[in-house]
Structures are given as C-alpha cells and as structure tokens.
C-alpha cells in the first residue's frame, strides 16, 4: 500500500471541493467508557467525518467497531457513562457542548433518528397517527391539529404506506415489522431534518423487506435534500444505499476509520484488508460451500492502524504501523 500524498492527520481523507457546506462536521471525536477500576476503555478513537447535504455516508463495520457509539455521540446522544472528546459542529453549534434543553431542540427536529428496532421510536400504547401528530406539534411544525393531521397523512404516503388513514388508526403491534420501520422513518423525517441517522434500519427485518426500506431512504434523501448517516454491518446494504456518485463509505474497525472514500471506490476497489475480507465474505451461489472468505483474526483484532492516507483522489486507507511507538510513519 503506497501513499501518493500524505495529508495532515485530519482523518477525513478526501479533499472536499471548496465551498461545500457541511451539515455536520465531526473532528477528533473520541468516546470512552469506564472499565474496571479507574481505567477507561476507548471505544471510538479520534475519528473525524464531514457530512454533506443530500449525501449518504455509510459507516460500515461489525458489532463492536464503535460505529453506533460514534454516530450517537456526534449527534449529542452518547450513551450514559460515556466520556466524549472532540467537536461535532452542526449549523455553527458544537453539539458536544450543548446542554439537554438545547440538544432537544435539535434532536427530532433537525436531526432525525431511525433506529434498528422501530419499537424504540414507537410508543406501543398509542396509535400511529397520534404519535406523528404529537411530534409535529411538539416541534412547532404545524399551526393546528388539523394541519398536523394533514401533514401526518402526507408523511405516511411519502413513506409508501398505501392506506394512510387506516394505518394512522392502528397501534404499532397491529402492523408488520416493515411497516413499523416505515412509520419510524416518517417520524424521523416529519420535521424536515437536515440530517437523518439510520442505525441498521434493515437488520431486524426480513431481507426482502429490509431492501425496500433502504430503497425508501435512498429515495427520500433526494426528495428532501437531507444528509444521511447510514450505519450497517452488511456490505450489500451499503452498496444499495450509497447509490449516488457523491455517496461515501467509511469502514470502521476497532474504533477507527480504516478506509474512507466514495462508494464506488471503496466497494469496487477496496484497499484495506478488512474491507476486502468483508466483500469476499458475501454468501452467494458462486462460492463453494465451506469456502466463504473469513476476516482473518489478526486483521479484526488489530489496533495498530495509522492515520488515513490518500491512495487515490477521494480515497484514503489506514495502514498498519510496524512499530506502535512510531505513530507518524506508515508502511512505505
């Protein structure tokens, strides 16, 4: 792996065309949790990422890579007990420095969340329509209840729910898993957010249903001009959501981004051994049984990845550091 240019260690890798506004600019974000005694375990290790309007950025990695903790932390929703360092600038405000009340004005309103489990955003005791109306009213997005109801029906149609009146009247448990996820998306977009964070939205659903949900999100970001931060462990789903030329993929491993670039670069021409292994691990009829590629253990547990270095315009990869004390050099 040879580096053609060495960039300064802001691990964003790609040089952005000048003047492109960032919806969210996260720099040097580190998150740690208290471990045994007074030791702290670092779950996210100095990660930076810039999210643009109408762009999908995929955080690709497996459980434990830190992707969920990172995404939640940069939107001000770090888990309890987390120590967060760094900055996450959203519309001129550093979300990591806001207090609870100010954060609540932003979350749900200008940043929408689509969690893996739709039950997390849906109240099982309330009818679907009512929940959307309440969110609209709470954030002052509707002048009256009637206006809110009209908007609510509009939203349900926007997420491809065909009988919005009927579904609005249902309780969450009365509709299918796929539909619950669409409703969760409707709630996430109801206030016209600038950023949507989708955390494994298709993982809890059947493969075919999940695909439709992902396609919906892809369609919505174009219509609404929102930025999407999409978290997944599934490289096939990553390819599905990152459908536009400007979309990017950031591969996370052990709390760091080890590969970052445009989707077509990272997914068709991966340079990092981990990304390569993920690609080769996809099950298909073409691979003989018993021979699916497996991420070698040395790669997965490796923590000595250096800073991201550009390998082609827009595409950066972290290399192994030979000598852990020598942080500046990579493999030649």
């Amino acid at each position, binding site marked *: 792996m040879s580096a053609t240019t060495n960039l300064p260690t802001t691990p964003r890798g790609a040089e952005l065309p000048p003047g492109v506004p960032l919806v969210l600019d996260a720099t040097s974000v580190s998150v740690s949790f208290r471990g045994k005694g007074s030791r702290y375990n670092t779950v996210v290790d100095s990660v930076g990422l810039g999210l643009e309007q109408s762009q999908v950025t995929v955080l690709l990695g*497996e*459980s*434990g890579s830190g992707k969920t903790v990172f995404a939640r932390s940069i939107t001000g929703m770090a888990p309890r007990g987390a120590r967060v360092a760094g900055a996450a600038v959203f519309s001129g405000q550093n979300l990591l420095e806001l207090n609870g009340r100010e954060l609540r004005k932003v979350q749900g309103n200008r940043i929408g969340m689509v969690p893996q489990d739709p039950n997390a955003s849906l109240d099982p005791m309330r009818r679907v329509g009512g929940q959307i109306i309440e969110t609209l009213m709470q954030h002052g997005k509707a002048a009256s209840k009637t206006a809110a109801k009209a908007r609510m029906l509009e939203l349900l149609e926007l997420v491809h729910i065909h009988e919005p009146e009927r579904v609005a009247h249902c309780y969450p448990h009365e509709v*299918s*898993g796929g539909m619950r996820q669409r409703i969760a998306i409707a709630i996430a977009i109801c206030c016209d957010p600038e950023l949507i964070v989708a955390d494994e939205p298709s993982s809890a659903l*059947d*493969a*075919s*249903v999940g*695909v*439709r949900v992902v*396609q919906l999100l892809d369609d919505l970001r174009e219509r609404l001009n929102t930025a999407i931060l999409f978290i997944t*462990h*599934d*490289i*096939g*789903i990553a*390819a*599905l959501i990152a459908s536009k030329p400007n979309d990017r993929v950031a591969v996370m491993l052990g709390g760091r981004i080890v590969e970052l670039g445009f989707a077509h670069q990272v*997914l*068709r021409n991966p340079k990092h051994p981990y990304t390569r*292994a*993920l*690609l080769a*691990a*996809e*099950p*298909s*009829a073409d*691979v003989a*049984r*018993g*021979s*699916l*590629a*497996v*991420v070698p253990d040395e790669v*997965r547990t490796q923590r000595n990845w250096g800073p991201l270095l550009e390998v082609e315009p827009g595409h950066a990869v972290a290399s192994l550091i030979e000598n852990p004390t020598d942080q500046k050099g990579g493999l030649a």
Partner: protein
Amino acid sequence: MSTVLSAENVVKRYGSFTALHGVSFALEKGKTLGVVGESGSGKSTLGRIVMRLMTLDSGKVLLGDDDLFALSRADLRVARRRIQLVPQDPRHALNPAMTVKDNLFFQLRAQGIARSTWNAKAEELLGQVSLPADYLHAYPHELSGGQAQRVAIARAIANKPEVLVCDEAVSALDKSVQAQVLNTFAELQSSLGVAMFFISHDLAVVEHISDDVLVLNRGTAVESGKTRDVLSNPQDPYTRELLEARHSVSAL
C-alpha cells in the same frame, strides 16, 4: 437416495388462523433443504413441527421411516437423537447460568451418552467448531455472537444426528461472522454427512448453502425444487419478488 426427513400435507391452525396450509417436502441424506420466506410465512412453525416441539392439526412427519407423531414417549426420546436444533438467537441459545461445558454436558446426558466420555467429547465438539478447549469454562455472556452460535452447533452435533434443523441460525449475526458460521455448517455436513433443514429469510444465504429450496408464502409452499433451477427460473410471482430484492443488493 434415502429420505431422512419428510412431511406430507402438514396443516397447523391457531384458532381461526391457519399457519400452514398443507405443506410437504422431502429431505435427502446429507443434503440441505433451504426453507425460505418472510416473517409470517410459517417457516419457523414448520421447523418446530418437524421436531415435534409443536403439535400439528393434520398431516404426517416422517423421520426416516418413523411416523414422528405416532411414536411413544420412550421411542420419541430415542428418535430425538437423530434430529437436533440450532436456534436463532445466539444470546439465548445457551443457558446463561451454566458454563459452555455444563451446557454441553446437559446435552450429552439427555442424549444418553456415557458419562465417562463426556470430558473428552466436550473438548472434541468444540474442536469441531474451531473453538479452543479453554472456552469450556466460559459463560455464554462472555462469548461473542458467532462464538455462542458455534457452541450451539457443537451441542447440536454432539450425538451425530442425521438432521439439523437450523432456524434462522445465521440471521442474527454480522455478515462477517455469518460467513464463518456458514463455513462451519458446510464443513460439518461434509464430515458428518448430516442433512440440514435450513430456515432463513435471506435468499443469498439459502442460495449459497442449500441443494434444494422450499419457498413459503403465508403458510403455503408456492415453489420447490433444486435451488439452482428455482432461483434461475422462478415460476411463482412471490419467488420472483424475493429474487428481485436479492439482486438489487448484489450491485457489487
């Protein structure tokens, strides 16, 4: 080719709701039958029924030549040595209050294996799923999803069953871990000659691991046959729908 597991017109009702509308299939020795469908298709129900973990309303299930639901208690206990389950959720597949070793020992006892061989067997079983013997002393919560699932597989093959019923056995795993577990299944099939009844909602997985496929839609078997044939030339609109979703993902 001998048939190790088959069903004839299995019907299952819950009150007025029919979960299975007369489903039939035949699983050959050493082969894999992929059972694919979305949530609510009845595939898990079918999986429970073919293990007699659930009753049926009409139809037959044959384990080899034996009518499973006609067996006496004692005969059923012995029959259970020929068909085993690998469940879906690695977090709950093993008893959390017991170590891996005790979980395996429980299985060995239930399957009637001589106590004197337990220690050696437990180590051997872990080896077959590529886990070091040290893991015998681990508690399930100390294992990752993939590791726990492999222990669940080790438990299932403890007495060399003829059939493994895998109920969404890789669905809860990360893709990278999924590959390892699928490889493990394939290796065990080739070394033990075990047949697999592989339930999954993921067509890509089913395509990879199975010789034959059974497509379920709301309790009805809409299509079945050799995997290659069915998926390259689907006859049923539902199968086509599932395939479309699958192919839009492999834009890689």
